[in-house]
């Protein structure tokens, strides 16, 4: 086996060298400035391309005819030959992608970085490198399989894409590793199985490998099917029609109005009952100026953060503040609990700011800010915070003068939840709003006075708050919206509350309004049932049911699903660092899938809803179609009863995808007319399925000369089937 590994390494080393030179250079020089999504995207892209390309190149050259014969006719079992190739390829890949990584680590640990650095920030890089291995095996699978129909070779890549998607969206690093091992192992075993039988020899594939190949093809097709449906939905239903155009609007005088952007060209402002007050065109410039004049200034908070190993907010957060001088960058570093500043030009540490003020030098062992920093996320991006707010208090920091003043400290027993500036652009300064678990505090910028507005609704139900500053006379309005954890359906159906307070903090009035559904159910949605197989529907719904209808609603039409639900919640990361954090995977999936699945609101109403019934009927039809096709095929090729049952069930569970899997995995020998009974019979069988006649011997014409004894039928030799 060793000479084969050596040969594989020699043959492919040049590709590895190319990657090290091209990618390594970039990574080491820019990586330290750019440990962000775009860098990791580039790493993923290079890893996928290199991994897939290497897999294809290693196999393609020797995949056919004489070259394959030259490779395989060696005193090595095929498994060992495959192992040698895989070993060499994996080694080359990891070396090529790993050298830049190692060089970067060395550079980071030896040179002084003008940035905070934590080892955990390398984890996404590592995960992306490892994902490339799935592409590698997908490349092997694609190159070696003499695909009998388009696309069956490429489905390994579909699985690899799924792996990339999951690795980018799961919340923990070890979740990502689990996904890579599971999917990578799947594709690798499938590739091994196909290599074992040479690609057009499925009848002799070990059952385990055959099953793995079936699952690979299945997952690949399902990924394509889901993506196809999503694209179809987005093309059929334009963006404008999907999102409800209506939203509530509080104007500067404190009147509750409705902003209607449903129409294409114009945006309308109406009363609550729909009477139109104003209208203007929807061009960006016009709209923004109008809204700016129209809207009361506000600040919102209470959104849950997305937590993932790719979001570095828990380790350090960069501040963007107008007081930060050029050439300086300031970060909150969780390890030290202080705001740490760096001079980029001179490439050195400036010092740190804590509750006790600025002190130069190393930030360790100095006074920490108590509690956790509040920050928001937008997908995987950490939004630079506007305030310096901790669970223990809100501070105003002047980074230029390196001064810190505390604006608001909650009383004992109170925890700060979030804080933000309430900026009125007509004035220079802003008030600061700090929301604790008991009340809303508004800190006046000019006087420093604090007004406390006790929370009017239970935090468990209404977590999203918006604080408005209205004038004539000056008042405050607090808006309560249902929390994220209630699920999409709840957010579209539970009422919202507006509570008005006087300038001194006395409650004036309350208004309750029905929400406008953020996403309207469309009539297209039930039709997607017809292109969704039962298993697919079950899986997808089970995955995001929690996000759709939350924990408090009664179980929907599809009931609880034990294993599926458990697996999905594992992957979706319900066990996270911060229990309050959201899983990015959940959000991503909800965003993608809500259009092609029954609408969250429909799900709430359960089976009595007509749209749900239509959807379910479509799904069943899909399953029946698949089952019928599989059954017909199985009967035509004279499958045993057990095989018929297996494939028909697969056909029902996976619909037309199941049929495609059957076509891809099973052996379909040619069928020619039987000389005895005239019906079509398979060429692989010695005995005709219909009449039991033997295969005709080759046509003899009297010119045959055989050594005596070899032309007689030897009964001891029997064929395979």
């Amino acid at each position, binding site marked *: 086996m060793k000479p084969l590994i050596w040969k594989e390494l020699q*043959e492919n080393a040049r590709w590895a060298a190319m990657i090290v030179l091209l990618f390594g250079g970039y990574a080491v020089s820019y990586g330290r400035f750019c440990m962000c999504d775009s860098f990791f995207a580039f790493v993923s892209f290079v890893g996928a391309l290199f991994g897939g390309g290497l897999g294809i190149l290693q196999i393609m050259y020797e995949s056919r005819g004489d070259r394959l*014969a030259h490779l395989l006719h*060696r005193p090595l079992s095929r498994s060992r030959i495959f192992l040698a190739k895989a070993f060499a390829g994996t080694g080359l890949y990891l070396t090529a992608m790993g050298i830049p990584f190692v060089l970067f680590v060395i550079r980071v640990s030896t040179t002084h970085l003008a940035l905070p650095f934590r080892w955990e920030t390398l984890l996404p890089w590592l995960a992306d490198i490892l994902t490339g291995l799935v592409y590698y095996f997908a490349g092997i699978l694609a190159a070696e399989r003499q695909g009998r129909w388009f696309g069956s070779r490429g489905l390994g890549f579909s699985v690899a894409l799924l792996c990339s998607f999951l690795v980018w969206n799961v919340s923990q690093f070890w979740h990502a590793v689990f996904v890579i091992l599971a999917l990578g192992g799947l594709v690798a075993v499938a590739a091994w199985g196909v290599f074992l039988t040479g690609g057009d020899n499925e009848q002799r594939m070990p059952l385990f490998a055959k099953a793995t190949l079936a699952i690979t093809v299945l997952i690949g097709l399902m990924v394509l099917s889901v993506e196809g449906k999503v694209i179809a939905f987005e093309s059929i239903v334009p963006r404008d029609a999907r999102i409800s155009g209506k939203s509530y609007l509080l104007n500067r005088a404190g009147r509750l109005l409705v902003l209607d952007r449903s129409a294409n060209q114009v945006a309308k402002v109406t009363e609550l009952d729909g009477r139109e007050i104003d209208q203007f065109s929807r061009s960006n410039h016009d709209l923004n100026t109008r809204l700016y004049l129209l809207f009361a200034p506000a600040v919102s908070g209470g959104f849950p953060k997305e937590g993932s190993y790719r979001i570095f907010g828990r380790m350090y957060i960069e501040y963007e503040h107008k007081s930060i001088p050029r050439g300086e960058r300031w970060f909150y570093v969780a390890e030290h609990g202080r705001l740490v500043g760096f001079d980029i030009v001179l490439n050195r540490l400036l010092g740190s700011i804590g509750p006790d003020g600025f002190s130069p030098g190393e930030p360790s062992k100095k006074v920490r800010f108590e509690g956790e920093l509040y920050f928001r996320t937008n997908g995987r991006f950490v939004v630079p915070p506007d305030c310096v707010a901790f669970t223990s208090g809100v501070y105003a920091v002047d980074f230029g003068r390196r001064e810190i003043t505390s604006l608001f400290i909650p009383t004992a027993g109170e925890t700060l939840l979030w804080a933000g500036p309430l900026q009125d652009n007509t004035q220079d300064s802003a008030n600061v709003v700090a929301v604790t678990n008991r009340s809303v505090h508004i800190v006046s910028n000019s006087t420093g006075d604090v007004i406390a507005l006790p929370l009017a609704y239970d935090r468990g139900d209404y977590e999203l708050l918006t604080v408005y500053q209205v004038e004539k006379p000056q008042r405050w309005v607090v808006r309560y919206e249902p929390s994220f954890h209630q699920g999409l359906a709840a957010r579209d159906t539970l009422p919202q509350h507006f509570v008005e307070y006087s300038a001194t903090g006395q409650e004036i009035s309350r208004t309750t309004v029905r929400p406008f559904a953020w996403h309207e159910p469309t009539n297209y949605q039930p039709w997607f049932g017809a292109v969704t197989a039962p298993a697919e529907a079950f899986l997808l719904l089970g995955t995001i049911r929690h996000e759709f209808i939350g924990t408090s609603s009664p179980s929907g039409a599809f009931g609880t699903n034990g294993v599926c639900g458990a697996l999905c919640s594992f992957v979706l990361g319900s066990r996270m660092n911060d229990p309050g954090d959201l899983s990015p995977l959940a959000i991503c999936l909800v965003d993608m899938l809500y259009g092609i699945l029954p609408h969250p609101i429909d799900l709430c109403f359960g089976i009595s809803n007509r749209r749900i019934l239509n959807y379910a009927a479509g799904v069943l039809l899909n399953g029946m179609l698949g089952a019928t096709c599989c059954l017909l095929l199985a009967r035509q090729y004279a499958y045993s009863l057990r095989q018929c049952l297996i494939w028909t069930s697969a056909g029902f569970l996976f619909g037309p995808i199941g049929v495609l899997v059957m076509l891809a995995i099973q052996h379909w020998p040619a069928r020619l007319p039987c000389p005895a009974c005239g019906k079509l019979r398979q060429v692989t069988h010695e005995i005709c399925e219909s009449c039991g006649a033997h*295969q005709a011997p080759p046509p003899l014409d009297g010119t045959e000369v055989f050594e005596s004894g070899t032309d007689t039928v030897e009964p001891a*030799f029997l*064929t*395979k089937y």
Partner: protein
Amino acid sequence: MISSDEVDVASLPDPGQSVIRAHALTRYFGNKCAVNGVSFSVPRGSVCAFIGRNGAGKSTTIRMLLGLLAPTRGRSMILGHDSLELPPETRARIGYMAEGHPVYPWMRVSQYGTFQKGFYRRWNQGMFSSIIDYFAIAPRTKAGELSHGQRAGLHLAMTLASEPELLVLDEPDTGLDPAARRSLLEAMIHFTRNRERTILFSTHLLDDVERMADHVMVLDYSVLRVACSVDLFRDHVRRVLAQFSGPPPRELPDIRGLLRATAGENDLTLIVANYSGHTERLLESVGAQTVVEQPLSLEDALVAYIGRHGKKDLFSAGRVES
């Protein structure tokens, strides 16, 4: 459906005498039958030539024998093992030269030696070097720079240096210059010094068949027509000249075993397999005055087999289609 009977193929009659046995070996590519019910056995110690037109199915058959391709139906045995379950140790005893002599273009010839050596327990480095030398190949040359004949030489060196028991050569002499061809034949003869060694080779050069083969197999478009010793073959295939008083008849009676018939002015030359008195009588019944046997070279006999379904010859006068 009959369940597969895992018969020990070694328990068949005279197992020690055959290194290769095939029974009803069939291979379909889609609807097209490439190899149809081929059965034969190659005795130990023989040099067996495998002949057929391009595309007749020789390479396919060879690949099935070596377990590199699975048959659609039928089974084959090689060195006492089922072809599809050939253990690696047995594969080491078979030397195979694939058609076209594929090489890794970047590997140097000397590296090839070390590369191949790593796979085999028995390796005769001296033989490898001497065959390389024989074909005038410099060891530092990259395999991609070798000529066709030299590539064949390299393959031969790799194959023979592992000292196999059975040599399977798929068109080894195609495209070789005369010197290289001669070297190949010399190597084959040298190989057969050990009487326990067997060669199976497919070729288009019938000259080589006459020189080297003591067994012959002819594949006529997926059907095996001949599988026997050369002596038996020569014995059974005859050329006869039938003289007629006038022009020979246009329509011939159904002569069993007729391979080729060429008409002259007053005579008919026939090449017939399994010639018997019956044929003579048939000819006389259509007016032949005399039927005399003529000498027949091995080459002509073999060409008669494989040239049957082509177009009319350009140069023969009035060839009669049977």
